[in-house]
């Protein structure tokens, strides 16, 4: 199971000034691998990258998965709730190399799941975010009904007295 997707060419051209595409492979390794054996597996994945220049890396760390991943292996369905998650960001010369990488990762028994994506050179977490305040809108304010001018007319004293008497009885 793998997924390959690309960010828009506009973003990648902005980020990768040298014109070479930057890819990132994220992978889950089986939780049954001993801690001391993780280095060897990562090294195996690094060799699959070939001549690609590695620019950033996250060493596999144990994590609890958000849902149980099932995998059929040697006629038995294994369930995993934990894994070692790691990632490697690398620059390639030729985009077609990533297809071979995906094929190789698919056949690796230690890899539970992986994802190869095209990304940007800088870390998205580190990228400065612009705080933009929307224009002055009348949000949250009650729109008031325009007050109509009172129609005032002259009332004679006699009429006024008559209406008061009618009210008081």
């Amino acid at each position, binding site marked *: 199971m793998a997924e390959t997707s690309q960010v828009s060419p506009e973003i990648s051209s902005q980020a990768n000034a040298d014109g070479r595409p930057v890819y990132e492979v994220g992978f889950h390794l089986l939780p049954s691998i001993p801690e001391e054996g993780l280095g060897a597996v990562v090294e195996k994945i690094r060799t699959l990258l070939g001549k690609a220049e590695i620019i950033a890396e996250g060493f596999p760390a144990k994590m609890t998965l958000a*849902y149980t991943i099932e995998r059929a292996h040697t006629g038995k369905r294994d369930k995993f709730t934990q894994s070692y998650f790691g990632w490697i960001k690398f620059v390639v010369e030729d985009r077609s190399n990533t297809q071979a990488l995906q094929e190789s990762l698919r056949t690796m028994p230690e890899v539970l799941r992986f994802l190869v994506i095209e990304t*940007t050179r800088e870390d998205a977490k580190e990228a400065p975010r612009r*705080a933009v305040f929307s224009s002055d809108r009348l949000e949250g304010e009650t729109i008031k009904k325009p007050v109509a001018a009172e129609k005032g007319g002259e009332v004679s004293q006699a009429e006024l007295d008559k209406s008061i008497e009618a009210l008081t009885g």
Partner: protein
Amino acid sequence: MAKEYVPQFNTIDYKDIETIKKFLNPHGKIMARRRTNLSSHGQRALSEAVKRARFMALLPYIVR
């Protein structure tokens, strides 16, 4: 007059779960653009990141 904070970003890392979670409802669904206040580009980046994170079991598909 109330001024509203509008977060802006063009890229969002699928591994950055803390940021992504701010834009999900308690059921794990992506909030609408009128709630996230993101630009159309930002909303698409968010949507892409959420789907990648779900595939990699960093986020659940559904929360009951």
